[in-house]
C-alpha cells in the first residue's frame, strides 16, 4: 500500500502526480511556497480582479504554513503545517490556475477533493506539531509576497527530503475516507 521513502522532486510532472496514491509516504525535494489564510484571501481576490495571480502558481506547490520567526544563524524557525480545511474555500480557484500540489494537515471538503481530482493535483499531509523536526528539512527560505502579513507572508522554501504522506491523490482517493 505505502511506498516508504520514495523520493520526488519539484516540479511534479504529470507522470509523478498520477503515480502517487493516497497513503504513499514520500520525501519531497525542491521548491514550495508557504501561504495560509490571509495570503489565500489576497491571492484569490487578485485573481478575481485581474484574472491572474500576483505570483505564478502553475505546476507549483503551496504549503499551509506560518513559521515562527527565524533566529540568527538559522534558515527558518519552527515550520509545521496548519489546518487545511480553513483554506477549502479558496483551493478550487488556485487549482483552476494550475496549482498541482498542496501540503497541510487534516481533512478537505468534498468540493476540494473533487477539484483535486479534476485538475490532476495531489494533497499531501505533513506531520502536524512537528515544526522543529520539519525545519531541519528546509535549505532556504525567502519571503517573496505580502511581507506585511508577517508570519502569513508567502515564503519561497527550498526543501530536501521533506517527509509527506499522500492525503488525496489525483484520482480523488482520500486517506481519511477509507
Amino acid at each position, binding site marked *: 500500500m505505502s511506498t516508504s521513502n520514495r523520493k520526488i522532486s519539484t516540479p511534479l510532472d504529470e507522470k509523478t502526480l498520477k503515480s502517487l496514491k493516497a497513503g504513499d509516504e514520500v520525501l519531497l525535494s525542491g521548491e514550495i511556497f508557504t501561504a495560509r489564510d490571509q495570503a489565500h484571501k489576497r491571492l484569490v481576490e487578485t485573481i478575481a480582479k485581474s484574472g491572474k495571480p500576483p505570483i505564478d502558481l502553475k505546476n507549483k506547490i503551496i504549503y499551509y504554513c506560518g513559521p515562527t520567526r*527565524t533566529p540568527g544563524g538559522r534558515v527558518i524557525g519552527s515550520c509545521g503545517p496548519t489546518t487545511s480545511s480553513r483554506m477549502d474555500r479558496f483551493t478550487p480557484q488556485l487549482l483552476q490556475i494550475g496549482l498541482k500540489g498542496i501540503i497541510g494537515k*487534516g481533512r478537505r471538503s468534498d468540493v476540494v477533493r473533487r477539484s483535486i481530482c479534476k485538475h490532476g493535483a495531489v494533497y499531501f499531509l505533513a*506531520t502536524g506539531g*512537528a515544526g522543529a523536526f520539519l525545519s531541519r528539512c528546509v535549505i532556504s527560505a525567502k519571503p517573496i509576497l505580502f511581507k*506585511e502579513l508577517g508570519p502569513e507572508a508567502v515564503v519561497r522554501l527550498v526543501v530536501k527530503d521533506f517527509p509527506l*504522506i499522500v492525503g488525496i491523490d489525483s484520482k480523488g482517493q482520500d486517506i*481519511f475516507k477509507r
Partner: protein
Amino acid sequence: MKKINSEMIRRAVAHLCVEANIKLRRDVCAALNRAVKNETNARAKRLLKQLLDNARIAQADKVALCQDTGMPSVFVEIGRDVNTQGLNIDQAIQKGIEDGYRKGFLRNSIVSDPLLRPQPPKFGPGVIHYDFGSHQGLKITVLPKGFGCENKTQLKMFTPTASLDEIKKFIISVVKESGPDACPPYILGVGIGGGADQAVLLAKKALLRPLDKSSSLAHVARLEKELLKKINQTKIGPLGLSGATTALGISVLAAPTHIAGLPVAVSISCHVLRSASVHFK
C-alpha cells in the same frame, strides 16, 4: 515571603513563554513514550517517534516545538501573604509575554482587532486569569495553546436531568468532530458545572493538571478513565491515520452549578500541550 516587584514578574513570564514553547512538558513526553510502546499500528508508532524526535530537536536547537506558539493564557494564583501594593501585575505580564516571544523567536500570532485584523500580527496581549487562594506566595503559569486545537473547543448546556451517558457521548463527539484536523493524539480538558463562562475556563485549566494524575473525586476519576478508553477506541490515531493512540490523557474539573443547568465544556489540546510555571515564595 520575599518582596516581589513588577520587573521580577516580567522576567519570569518572558522565561516561561520561551520554556513552554521549546521544552515539551515532562508528563506529555512520558505519555508519548508510553504510547510508542503500546501502539500496535506501525505507521502510528513511527509518527509518535517523530513527535518525540521533534521534542528533542526543539530543545537541542532552541526552536519552538510548533510554529503555532499560541495565544498565551496566563494563570495567576495570588496567595494570602502576597503584598500586591505597588505592583502592576497586568502590565508586567503583558510586557513579559512580549519580551519572551521576541527573544525566543516565537511567532507573532495576535491581531489587535478580531474584525479589522490589522497586519502584521503582534506578540500579545495574552489572556490573564487571576485567582486569590489560601496558599503561600505567587504562582504564575503560562499556557500557550495553539489555535488549530483551540478552534475545536465546544460548550454544551445540558439540562440537569441529562444522563451521564449523554455527557460522555457529547465529549466523545467533540473528539470525533476534531478527527484528524487538530493534531491528534489529543489531550482533553473538560469543565463541568459553573455557568457557561466557568465551564469553559475550567476546561482549559484542566489541561494544566499532569497527565499521570487523575481527579481526586472518585466518580470523576472513573469518568476520566472510561472516557479515555472510549476515545482511544475511536482509532482516530496520530495525525488521524488510525492507531491505538487517539488521546494521551483527559482531565475533568467539576464545580458547583445551578439547579436548572449542567454546562459541559471541552477544550481539546493537540499533542504539543505546553505550559510552564513559576512559584515565588
